[in-house]
């Protein structure tokens, strides 16, 4: 599997979303962008949500910590957590090399697709990153 970052959707808060159709149900796979990981630097800890939890669009679903700071992770879409990447917190150094495949964090069963319309495409997200330097 290799996820193409140019085909993902992005939140202003640097999470990416990959939407797939699984038997008529929209499933969102969520991670954080390579740009964000580079900015955070020296990651030491990640807090994941519990499977079965329902999260609203824009709600905090976990945390990632660097040596210096704690950064909340916000869910770009709402839905029920159906899977978490349990190996990720023990292998945060790999997140740097592979933010879009190995670096997925959670999978949600999307409950309201309208939140997807508020997200940016890759070009718009790249523009935001360039502007924030």
């Amino acid at each position: 599997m290799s996820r193409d970052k140019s085909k993902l959707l992005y939140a202003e808060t640097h999470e990416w979303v990959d939407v797939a159709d699984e038997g008529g149900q929209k499933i969102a796979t969520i991670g954080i962008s390579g740009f964000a990981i580079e900015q955070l630097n020296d990651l030491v800890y990640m807090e994941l949500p519990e499977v079965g939890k329902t999260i609203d669009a824009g709600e905090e679903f976990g945390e990632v910590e660097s040596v210096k700071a704690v950064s909340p992770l916000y869910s770009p879409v709402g839905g029920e957590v159906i899977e978490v990447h349990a190996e990720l917190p023990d292998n945060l150094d790999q997140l740097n090399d592979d933010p879009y495949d190995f670096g997925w964090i959670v999978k949600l069963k999307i409950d309201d697709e309208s939140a997807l319309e508020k997200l940016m495409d890759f070009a718009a997200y790249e523009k935001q990153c360039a502007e924030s330097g």
Partner: protein
Amino acid sequence: MSQADPSSQTYSQTPLDGWHRSAGAKMVPFAGYEMPIQYESIVSEHQACRNAAALFDVSHMGRLRFDGDGSEALLDRLLTRRVTDLPIGGVRYGMICNQDGGILDDVLVSHLKTPSESRYHLLVVNASNRAKIVEWIKPHLDDFPKVTFSDRTELTAMIAVQGPLAMETCKRLFTFDPSRLKYYQARITDQFSKPVIVSRTGYTGEDGFELVVRAEEATRVWENVLLAGRDAGFAPAGLGARDTLRMEAAMPLYGHELDETVDPVSAGLNFACNLEDRDFIGRDAIAAVKSAGPRRVRIGLLPGGRRPAREGCDVLSADGQVIGKITSGGPSPTLGHPIAMAMVDAEHATAPEFEIDIRGKRSPATRTKLPFYRRAKS
């Protein structure tokens, strides 16, 4: 992930600002200055300091000079530490307190002699406290008319070179070999005929030195030290590594472990108060705390698991009572697990087990001796 908060405030730049930017440093506002927080990685800069040496631009710290008769007596009145017996070449750590014993700042005072044989005292203060301390000093100058007081911060730069290879690698750079200084000694020497104050002091738990040079010499000196240590693994390091290093060495930081509500005894800095030999501002209050025992004390904690406990987290006793707060905390790159310092109620301070409330979740922690890291004696 959150968005950066844009600010229209203007900040001062140190004389090394251009160098930092050209090296790709991530710059952040700190105590009125734009300072490098890291160049590439806090962890690698931290490790460079523990294994070779790291260079820190600490020009934002305040440098206040006292010339003339009465300088010692003035400083004796202001500092918790006696200054009149500080020999030429001596450096001393102390605090400036208010009448209630609250810490206005923690400082280093050096007694120096210029090549033309004039003596003066240099007080290094925290960047965030510089304006406050200058205002605190001014009214006392009236009682010491022969003292000339000058704020040398913006005319000079300050560079810390810290690490096990700092001395050996750099000793050829100066007319005087800095390794001949004992810990907490300083002298004025020169580098390529330009004056430099070199002190065997630092804030990382490593051996090393701190330099004060004229602002226009800063980049040249910085580059010379980096070049001297290039093959040895010297690296420039930002405020991020400076904080993880000083935390491991359990050195207090103003605004975290120390502030005006904390007295030196509670902060565990009894050693830096000379209560018996003279009067100074805050002495009676500090003596009273010492005789009654402090209400709060600073302790070291090892949070269980990998989740760091950060400043501001509540510390709870084993039976669930809130008894204090984390003052500094984070991952320790040297030890590979989180560490934290806390101010807790004195009656609970000797307990072996605690809990920390990390953003709503309780995490166990055990008390440990400070410092967390101590360098091997050479």
